[in-house]
């Protein structure tokens, strides 16, 4: 019997909060992801578990290269996140985060659509708990908005799955083409979790409201699980190129306008997932390898960036760029690790982003997709602009805020240093990562031309940043997004309509009451104690009326 790696985390997370000692809980939170990582590598290719449910055969555990790649990084991420969150006071957050990681892994190992759906919903609930456990009013409302969007996405997905199963009779989760209503619904359900338009706003709305450690977990699982299911379900769907392209530029522009350091990084998740979605849309082996490798690399450097931001938040309690600055002087380790993450997200040569993202551009070039290639090149420069320089510059440099917080404790520094080492290590030695990719890799990232052109692109983007710094001055603002419709418009509409509706309802009630009253009076008049129909009549009048009726009948009988 093969252990299900996802169940190790999911069941372990349920036991975790009830362990008696804090030390035991901490040890278990580190041991569970490592045990799951071990189990991931015990799963053979093909379906390992089968279950009969009603008339269907479910495959809750099936392995292949793509599954293993995502499950491995999910387990690594859960372990590093648990280490970073070792000092987290909340007893809910880490168990919820491990449950969340386990559910993401459950989607990765699912061989059928029902299992995908079950873990998909568990992921939504567990991640809501992670946000909610920050304990503030803002995090509570954000978590409820987040949950509503994800439950909506879940309903769309379920409708699609039901339609797909009814039409094809197959539960298997394999390559689909969006050619029927049902498969469109499945695609839409997947895209909600990827942060695709029009519902991208849930991500920058909710993630930054989690605690200093919660956001680190959140950045990894939901969107990357969506990338995984798109990779398996819809590779080569051309629409995804344009969806991804929109996400890329949406992320850049909104991050440029943003003042909250963690929201900048949240927008840049949408941006980075956009690159992966473009790769899935291009759909060649090179592009799909690129998307998968980029998801792997992204989880590491985005977690690193959010650990760096989380450390700043942990020490200062502040998250707005306008309140921060100059922190490199007293937080050198945090600043250094943040810069490594920023270089990796920007695909700087000798970092992990360089060896993964460039495969997607290469695929666009190989397919002669000129505009896509130009868009990706502009966006690569834009990533350096909005995340690569903007985040470290406004948090650690710019003006001196006068704050002199110390670097965080060792339990928070160690995962940052480990992930920094991975960002550089994968950049220098990409072969182990390439070996994990779903298809054989025929790509050498380090050619003189590639390094030189990428350096030009990035460094001149840096020049643009510093030349136009006046345009990027931080203000105490947020930027409106389509979430305005459910955060402002809908509540206002309800407020506006409430007096109107109460008026209409009161009027209807009054009319109904008076009609009923009048009916009651009529009844009373005829059937009441004094009513004509309730009177007691003498027997004589009864006999009289009977005689009248009989005479009338007689008369009618003899009529011709």
């Amino acid at each position, binding site marked *: 019997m093969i252990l299900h790696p996802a169940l190790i985390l999911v069941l372990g997370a349920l036991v975790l909060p009830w362990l008696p000692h804090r030390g035991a809980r901490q040890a278990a939170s580190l041991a569970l992801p490592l045990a799951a990582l071990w189990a991931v590598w015990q799963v053979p290719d093909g379906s390992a578990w089968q279950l009969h449910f009603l008339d269907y055969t479910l495959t809750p555990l099936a392995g292949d290269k793509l599954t293993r790649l995502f499950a491995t990084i999910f387990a690594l991420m859960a372990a590093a996140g648990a280490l970073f969150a070792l000092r987290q006071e909340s007893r809910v957050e880490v168990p919820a985060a491990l449950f969340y990681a386990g559910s993401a892994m459950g989607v990765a190992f699912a061989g059928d659509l029902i299992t995908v759906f079950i873990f998909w919903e568990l992921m939504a609930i567990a991640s809501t708990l992670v946000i909610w456990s920050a304990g503030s*009013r*803002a995090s509570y*409302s*954000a978590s409820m908005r987040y949950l509503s969007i994800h439950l909506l996405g879940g309903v769309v997905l379920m409708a699609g799955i039901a339609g797909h199963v009814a039409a094809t009779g197959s539960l298997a989760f394999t390559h689909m083409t969006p050619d029927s209503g049902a498969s469109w619904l499945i695609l839409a359900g997947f895209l909600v979790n990827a942060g695709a338009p029009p519902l991208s706003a849930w991500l920058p709305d909710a993630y930054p409201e989690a605690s200093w450690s919660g956001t680190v977990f959140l950045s990894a699982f939901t969107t990357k699980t969506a990338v995984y299911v798109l990779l398996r379900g819809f590779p080569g769907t051309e629409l995804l190129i344009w969806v991804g392209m929109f996400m890329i*530029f949406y992320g*850049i*522009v909104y991050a*440029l*306008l943003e*003042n*909250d350091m963690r929201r900048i990084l949240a927008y840049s998740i949408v941006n980075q997932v956009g690159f992966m979605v473009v790769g899935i849309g291009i759909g060649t082996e090179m592009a799909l390898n690129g998307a998968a490798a980029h998801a792997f690399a992204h989880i590491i450097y985005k977690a690193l960036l959010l650990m760096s931001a989380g450390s700043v938040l942990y020490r200062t309690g502040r998250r*707005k760029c306008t309140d921060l600055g*100059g922190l*490199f*002087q007293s937080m050198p380790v945090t600043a250094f690790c943040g810069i490594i993450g920023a270089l990796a997200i920007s695909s700087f040569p000798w970092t992990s982003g360089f060896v993964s993202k460039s495969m997607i551009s290469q695929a666009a*070039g*190989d397919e*002669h997709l*000129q505009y896509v*290639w130009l868009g990706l*090149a*502009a966006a690569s*420069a*834009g990533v350096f*602009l909005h995340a690569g320089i903007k985040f470290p510059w406004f948090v650690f440099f710019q003006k*001196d805020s006068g704050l002199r917080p110390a670097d965080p404790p060792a339990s928070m520094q160690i995962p940052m240093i480990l992930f920094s080492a991975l960002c550089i290590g994968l950049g220098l030695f990409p072969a182990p990562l390439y070996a994990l990719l779903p298809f054989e890799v025929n790509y050498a990232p380090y*050619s*003189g*031309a590639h*390094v*030189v*052109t*990428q*350096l*030009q*692109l*990035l*460094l*001149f*983007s*840096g*020049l*643009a*940043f510093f030349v*136009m710094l006046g*345009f*990027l001055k931080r*203000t*105490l*603002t*947020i*930027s*409106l*997004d389509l979430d305005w419709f459910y*955060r*402002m418009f809908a509540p206002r509409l309800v407020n506006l309509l409430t007096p109107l509706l109460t008026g209409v309802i009161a009027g209807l009630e009054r009319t109904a009451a008076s009609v009923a009253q009048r009916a009651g009076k009529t009844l009373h008049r005829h059937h009441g104690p004094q009513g004509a129909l309730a009177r007691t009549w003498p027997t004589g009048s009864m006999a009289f009326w009977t005689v009248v009726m009989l005479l009338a009948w007689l008369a009618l009988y003899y009529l011709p």
Partner: protein
Amino acid sequence: MRESTEKHWLLRPKTITLLWRVFIAILAATVIAERVVHLHPHFGFDGWFGFHAWYGFLACAAMIIFAKGLGLLIKRPDTYYGDDQ
């Protein structure tokens, strides 16, 4: 002089001038290096001299200006959604 001893060495005006000079030298070097390496453009225009340099710069300038313009329309005070923020 007192100020420069109080400030971190990285923040002194002298260092900043030096950093700018080094930065510009590196920028120039990356463009000149194009002459040394063998470019293999996909489309043709990406083989023009210094294409990635000026394309990167102009793309970023365009994005910053676009964001600035869009900001005029969609920026709101960060208390817009109430004390929720």
